[in-house]
């Protein structure tokens, strides 16, 4: 009854045996130990900085030596916001999936929250957090983290919820009939089932987080030390060398995260795929292989993780936690009622206050908001059209031609991975040197931030058009414009719509930072709702800030519902290529 031993590992080790024998097992451990020490030092440094006093006129050093520290600060904000998002997403998704009464309002709420442009709250949130921790760096830091959190949490929550909802019925029944306890269910069914969705959504969220973080770090008076403020300072000084160095660091950080976090996680998550047969080309990661070889990790798993897991399951086997509503007692019900009522009360109070503030505004303010909304709306749509005009032919060319795709796709991915907000100061600098105003320049900035969504979706769509359809078109001599009308455009339509929806949401977001900018001590701005929001913040006109923010959010949510949602449904039903 002996289980096959780990003979499998030997040939793998041989690759490494070029190195001296001792270090083969020792090297991974040594590296991880050093990493631990570095982490400890970092925590102490950050603690000193964050709990220290707030520097309103923080001097951003442009020396290359400061870059790693700035990169570290940026990374830390992202990591913190990400951990918060994950915790929130899992809790929210779990409650929504299992409490049908809560589900009824939690899911529509998620839908609205998801489509609100986060950056429109940037000024408000930063002001509020700074006021909450007066005189401390912690305030603005928390503001940034909170903002990134709001930018990345919703899709993760929705993904977790959707995964829980799609667990096959028989699998749930197996868990019930074999008396799985709450913890076992969570660990062995719910979490594994949701892993792949969570991983992909995490990647998307973190990519978006860089975008928001750069905007935060460059925002107005609240200079946060980080890569964003470094780039801003470099652009302010017109220092091309520093600009290049900053962008290089940014790309390096993103590539490193990809190699050391996402690749291993994706390779690891492969085992959670709900597939019936093993796929032939599973993703691999050298970092994951490296970790699997580390003796330290193996010992840690055996000595710490496995016993802990056993203890937890044992504990819950004896202490049953009821999650399904069956055993809901009176006290819990009352607690829910109290929570619900107070939440309603708070919302009611907030609405009353908002109405009071809005009634205090002048008619001219509203007119201004209307004009601003229209200008930005126009700009967003021009951006979408321009973006579609070049990405559709380019994307289809790449998608139809595997050789071209091999070269173009990695390049496009790297270009897209640089958050548009990071290069804003630089682009602005160039635009101003060329003599263009921000009215036109902001469209370039919007395009920079959103075209990638369309491009990647079009490529995916073009690749998804089945070869036999292309052959049929060839056989019947359908070519030229006819080929576009009958084959390509309908084929990529669902993908195009998805890309446009994301791009439209992104464009509204970017408008906050694209229509109004500080550079070299001067303010550049153009007509638009984004500019109004930023200007209102600078002028500390909170009533106008609130009104513009609400107006923007309302317009975006409404367009989503009225236009994009419909197009999406059309794409889903009529233009879906089914097997």
């Amino acid at each position, binding site marked *: 009854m002996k289980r096959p031993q780990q003979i499998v590992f030997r040939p793998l080790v041989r690759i490494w045996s070029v190195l001296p024998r001792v270090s083969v097992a020792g090297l991974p451990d040594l590296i991880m130990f050093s990493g631990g020490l570095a982490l400890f030092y970092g925590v102490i440094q950050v603690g000193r900085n964050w709990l220290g006093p707030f520097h309103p006129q923080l001097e951003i050093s442009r020396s290359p030596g400061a870059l790693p520290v700035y990169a570290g600060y940026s990374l830390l904000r992202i990591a913190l916001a990400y951990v918060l998002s994950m915790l929130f997403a899992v809790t929210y998704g779990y409650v929504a999936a299992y409490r049908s009464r809560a589900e009824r309002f939690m899911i529509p709420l998620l839908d609205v929250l998801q489509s609100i442009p986060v950056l429109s709250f940037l000024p408000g949130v930063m002001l509020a957090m700074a006021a909450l921790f007066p005189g401390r760096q912690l305030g603005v830091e928390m503001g940034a983290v909170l903002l990134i959190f709001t930018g990345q949490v919703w899709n993760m929550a929705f993904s977790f919820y959707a995964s829980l909802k799609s667990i096959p019925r028989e699998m749930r029944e197996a868990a019930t009939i074999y008396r799985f306890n709450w913890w076992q269910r969570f660990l*062995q069914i719910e979490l594994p089932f949701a892993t792949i969705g969570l991983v992909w959504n995490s990647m998307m969220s973190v990519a978006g987080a860089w975008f928001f973080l750069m905007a935060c770090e460059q925002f107005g008076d609240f200079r946060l030390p980080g890569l964003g403020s470094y780039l801003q300072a470099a652009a302010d000084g017109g220092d091309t060398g520093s600009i290049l160095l900053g962008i290089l660091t940014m790309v390096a950080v993103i590539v490193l995260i990809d190699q050391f976090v996402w690749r291993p996680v994706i390779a690891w998550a492969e085992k959670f795929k709900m597939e*019936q047969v093993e796929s032939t080309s599973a993703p691999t990661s050298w970092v994951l292989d490296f970790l699997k070889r580390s003796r330290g990790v193996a010992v840690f798993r055996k000595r710490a993780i496995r016993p802990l897991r056993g203890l937890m399951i044992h504990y819950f086997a004896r202490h049953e936690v009821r999650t399904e509503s069956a055993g809901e007692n009176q006290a819990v019900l009352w607690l829910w009622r109290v929570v619900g009522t107070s939440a309603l009360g708070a919302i009611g109070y907030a609405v009353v206050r908002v109405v009071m503030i809005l009634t205090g505004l002048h008619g001219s303010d509203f007119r201004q908001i209307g004009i601003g909304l229209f200008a930005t709306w126009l700009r967003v749509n021009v951006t979408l059209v321009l973006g579609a005009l070049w990405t559709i032919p380019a994307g289809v060319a790449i998608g139809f031609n595997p050789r071209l795709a091999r070269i173009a796709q990695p390049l496009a991915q790297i270009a897209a991975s640089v958050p548009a907000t990071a290069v804003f100061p630089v682009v602005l600098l160039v635009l101003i040197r060329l003599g263009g105003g921000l009215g036109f320049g902001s469209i370039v900035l919007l395009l920079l931030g959103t075209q990638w969504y369309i491009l990647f979706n079009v490529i995916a769509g073009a690749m998804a058009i089945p070869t036999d359809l292309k052959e049929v078109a060839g056989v019947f001599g359908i070519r030229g414009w006819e080929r576009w009308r009958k084959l390509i455009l309908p084929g990529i339509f669902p993908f195009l719509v998805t890309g446009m929806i994301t791009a439209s949401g992104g464009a509204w977001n970017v408008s906050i930072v694209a229509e109004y900018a500080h550079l070299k001590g001067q303010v550049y701005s153009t007509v638009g709702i984004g500019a109004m929001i930023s200007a209102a913040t600078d002028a500390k006109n909170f009533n106008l800030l609130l009104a513009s923010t609400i107006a923007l959010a309302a317009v975006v949510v409404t367009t989503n519902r009225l236009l994009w949602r419909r197009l999406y449904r059309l794409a889903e039903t009529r233009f879906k290529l089914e097997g």
Partner: protein
Amino acid sequence: MTEPVDPIIRAHAVEKFYEQPDGNRIEVIAPVDLDVEPGKIITLLGPSGCGKSTLLRILTGLSQPSSGKVLWHGQPISPENAGVAIVFQSFALFPWLTVLDNVEAPLEARGVPAMERHKRALRILDTVGLDGFESAYPKELSGGMKQRVGFARALVVEPEVLFMDEPFSALDVLTAENLRNELLELWLSKKMPTSAIFIVTHNIEEAVLLADRVIVLARNPAWVRADFPIELAHPRDRKSPRFVELVDYIYKIMTQPQLAVAVPDAAAAVQKPARQKYQMIPHARVGGIAGLLELLQDRGGKEYLHRLAEVLIMDAEDLLPIIEASVLLGFATLKEGDIQITAEGARFAEADILTRKILFRQAALNHVVILQQIDSMLHAKADHSIPEEFFYDILDEHFSQDEVERQFDTAMNWGRYAEIFDFDRESHRLVLAEPVGEPHPPTTTPVQL
């Protein structure tokens, strides 16, 4: 059945229905009494969608009946107190756990210490022939191997009753046959710690091959149509006259729900007064019906049902709806387990494409209630169109949610083929079609709002 034995599970008047918002009740399972006694393999047979899987879930305590009760050794049943296990049709294995971890998971849930857990899991894997696959992941295994893991996981908790929900229907024919025999061998040699097996299946031969007792459900709502013992000795020969007779008999029961069945020997059929019901369309596509009629015509217009199943290599689940549809449309008749083509059916089988459409249209409008209703509605309305909700409104009153969907699907398939109506995807409306071979209706269609 000389001395009464205490049943392990006793279901008393269990019933399942769904409350509609308008207070109407959709009955899925009519009150059923059922005992699971020790020492037997019981199979529950029934057409697809008749509620046999629901009944299984009620018997295991997984799902609550709307009324009535299920007792486990005299106590109300729940998954916590019942010594049951289920083998699922889809295997329901956890793909991220190894074979060994999958089998150990139920023991872990019961707080069995690691060493013992390990020992028991290995022993059971040995029993079902999975030696050497302990550290494999389910996706590395073939379907048959996966279901072995499903068996092992079920047997490791030493269930008093082993429930199986269509355990072999996701497997290919040979693998299924092999597993069936192994199960039987384990059971007969008492190698499994189980005192009764309860199998839900739609495969008639499988039931006769395995069962000591066969229960046949009729549908809409489910009720026990027949319940009889099979006393053939194992191993059973599929070609033996008694075996063929039993298979034939069950086919007869399942295809003629209204008929009182003369029971061969020991069998006892339960009778229930037929009730006035809204007509339910069998879920068959026009293509399937045409295929069946052509085959019948080729074979001289008459055939045994079970032979037909053999020729077509179809099991009852797929074949029965097609037969029922042909009978409903008046293209065929059933008599004593034979199917016979009618004159109408013969004409249909011989006709060309366009004539077939006309014949089908006549048959559909003569026999199918929902299509009659839609047709007269479409002619009565000024704009000759009705929203699809009209359909749902009629059907909602009589069928469960899933069944409404299936009824809608089939009626759409028939109605569009017969050119009784057309479906406009944009507006989700049924519109009057211009039927072939008939003069066009007056085109005074007013502007649609």
